[in-house]
């Protein structure tokens, strides 16, 4: 999958959860990714984050260890 698209999708998810009240937004981003993204896509996102996470929303970065 083109990287920019994967990143945009992850950031969009983070965009929603960032607006939600409570303390566990990163967990909720991770839960959404685990529930709806197949393992390959998650692996790709993790690999990208390991290389360079500058274009990822902060919440996605926080969620990475949980997926």
């Amino acid at each position: 999958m083109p990287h920019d698209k994967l990143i945009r999708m992850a950031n969009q998810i983070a965009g929603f959860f960032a607006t939600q009240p409570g303390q566990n937004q990163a967990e909720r981003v991770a839960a959404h990714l685990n529930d709806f993204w197949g393992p390959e896509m998650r692996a790709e996102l993790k690999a990208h984050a390991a290389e360079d996470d500058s274009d990822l929303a902060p919440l996605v970065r926080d969620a990475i260890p949980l997926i």
Partner: protein
Amino acid sequence: MKDFIIPWDDRDMGTPAVEGAPVTLTVDGFEVTVPEGTSVMRAAAEIGMSIPKLCASDNLEAFGSCRLCVVEIEGRRGTPASCTTPVAEGMVVRTQSSKVKKIRRGVMELYISDHPLDCLTCAANGDCELQDMAGAVGLRDVRYEAPENGGLANHFEPRTGGEVNPEWIAKDDSNPYFTYDPSKCIVCSRCVRACEEVQGTFALTIEGRGFDSRVSAGGPLDEFLTSDCVSCGACVQACPTATLQEKSVIELGTPERSVITTCAYCGVGCSFKAELNGDELVRMTPYKHGEANRGHSCVKGRFAYGYASHSDRILNPMIRDSIEEPWREVSWEEAIGFAADRMRGLQERYGRKSIGVITSSRCTNEETYLVQKLARGVFMNNNTDTCARVCHSPTGYGLGQTFGASAGTQNFDSVEKVDVAIIIGANPTDAHPVFGSRLKRRVRAGAKLIVIDPRKTDVVRSAHIEAAHHLPLRPGTNVAVVTAMAHVIVDEKLYDEAFIRERCDWNEFVEYMEFVQDVRHSPEMTEMLTGVPAEELRKAARLYATGGNGAIYYGLGVTEHSQGSTTVMGIANLAMMTGNIGREGVGVNPLRGQNNVQGSCDMGSFPHELPGYRHVKGDEVRALFESKWGVEIDPEPGLRIPNMLDAAVSGSFKGLYCQGEDILQSDPDTHHVAAGLAAMECVIVHDLFLNETANYAHVFLPGSTFLEKDGTFTNAERRINRVREVMKPRNGYADWEVTQLLAKAMGADWTYTHPSQIMDEIAETTPGFANVDYAMLEERGSVQWPCNDDAPDGSPIMHVDGFVRGKGRFIVTEYIPTDERSGPRFPLLLTTGRILSQYNVGAQTRRTENSIWHDEDVLEIHPHDAEVRGVKEGDWVKLASRSGETSLRATITDKVVPGVVYTTFHHPDTQANVITTDFSDWATNCPEYKVTAVQVGLSNGPTEWQRQYNAQADRSRRILPAAE
């Protein structure tokens, strides 16, 4: 084949049923008790006495014009018409006195004197109420005679007494499906009333008075086709004579048997009687006891079934090694073997997860269930998705999160109790016409309407209805508008605190209130952004919160956005905070696009969910299916359609079985879809026609139409309706059989011999379907899920005593603008939709006479935007976005606001999806069809891409003659 025995009384009772206190009377000495307000005619019919009638019909208000239905009532003077006379306690009615019999004969004599006596060659012979009534009243002769020096004044002879008859009007056969022959008209005005009361179009009027009165469509120069008529067929159904008559009956003769089945077009799911001679379909008529449609229909279901016998239909399986080659017709055995070998080979070479399926919202529940089972239990992966991905996936997610059930909350009958309806991002009169008619009827009876839509759709203003408020928002700002409405409701304390405290999580509501109270959500602040005047929005919010039963109906204009799921949650919030959930007349109602969107979602088409919306990660659920299927199920979600295409482009996804779905035409960003398909090594298309996706296919498996198989569809109100085999599959196999053949060729041990066994398996594994089986559907007609021991009769309305998830959940809905924005290069916003006569990508409707109403997609543009660009009505224009460009003709209209353009996507030549982008809903990846930044400029015809595309399509559709 056994005809479906109609379990209910199918007679015309003369006048509509009413509700009221019981009243007892006697008719010809027999006692009968009926609700107060019932007509004498209906009371008599209840005990099996049909009083002769012509102008009355039980789907229309009584009119009292023909005087055939007269009766005598003790203690009353004269002979009142039984259709217009309400019953009274103790009334004594006589239906057959010599006095009334004489009157009836006189009335009939008069009618017949002005009616041609060509019964034997008339298309309605045997199906004519005038004929029946002449018999019923014992009419034996007609005593009117022509005067000596001329003809008898009449309407039916072109020449009378040697002169041209000025009263005679020629037949109007402009409508492709029915004719109007004024010479046979008895001016009972049933057609006019049907058009008004049932359909709500007001296309017909009675011109003139007395002997001169005539039915007329539109103005003096109009014929049916040029009038406002939308060809719903209600008038044809209502006409007691051959005046309004289906052309198919004229051509084929009156049908002798009928089978009850379900329309395969939109999510309303209308019930029809398929009427046949042998296996020749003569006509489809709306079924009176269909609970979704209550005897009404639209042009698609009623008339547009000709595609089933269209010459384009492919009836033999075909294969080819590469898409550059022409197709080769082969036996089923060879095609299935070829497909199975290729798919297995791909898995060996590229891994278990390199192949997948796409199920169809047009196929039955049983077929969809099998296709996802094929992925999970035979391919051994969860790569299954459905076209619902591209339309209503946010509904599933949003309503699941807030209410706990991924479905609409009401039945369609509920609309009869609505006081305020919000229509958001939906165009019911075009896309869900029968629901549109029922809604309009309710609005004419006094309900208020709020329309939230960038376009001035027909429900905003048309004959005898007008929306109380139209909020013409900028495409893409739904969340801001819905949240602003919530702001007003909280700000002005219009919420239903008792309901919220009892049914929802109060703490969550408090959090939500804090969020929504912020002044940035006020309509005054969002006006700049949304384009909706603050005062109008405030009024609309007040009306919804305080106007009585408030119901929200929404469509793809809500879901097909980058914040589609958020809007669905926002809608759910509005309903919860105003207490508009859990009873008749309220609720949240997604209007589903295709016939079985609800069912295809229910049946586990999504890659992360097994049937019944249960996540594949759940050990218990997997164990249930594993024991049933004897396989191990992957606990990880599979690929969604856009993911499959991305994976194909990057080389890890290689094979696809696509049933009844044309992703190349219907999915966004055509270039990307084409690239994905082209990168696959085995694409199996299972469809009626060589659709656009088939241009990239290696195996073509011919499909069967809804007329040729048994199964069930689940409509937008969760109603499980039976689809019945009306004729044998012309391609040899019903679609479920084809899937089973493929599964078996790939090693499965499936042994279904009838779809009812598939439904039994669904019931065993899916709690909401636990008590559903074909025997029950046969007996009851239809049932709404959940249907199990807790709700043995099904569930017309959900969340009655509490939300399915327990407490209703308020979710914060912050507006996040889409990245798709207009700018200097692409200054306009394109939004897309549908029109009445065509359906989806048009594969079916384009192959019917419906094309007479819509033979190409056109671009709607506001006069202002058109003028700046020098565009005139009918000009070819180029429509360009950052994804691609296409050309089509422009039409200039103020239905759209300045800055917004609109088109439909029914025709492959237009390729509107070349323009749409790959942006999608954050939660579900439902594509953002409804907002694309575009530029419009004059052009001189189709673009290079359109020309190339057509050339490629023609090349890839070549079929070699079958080898002997």
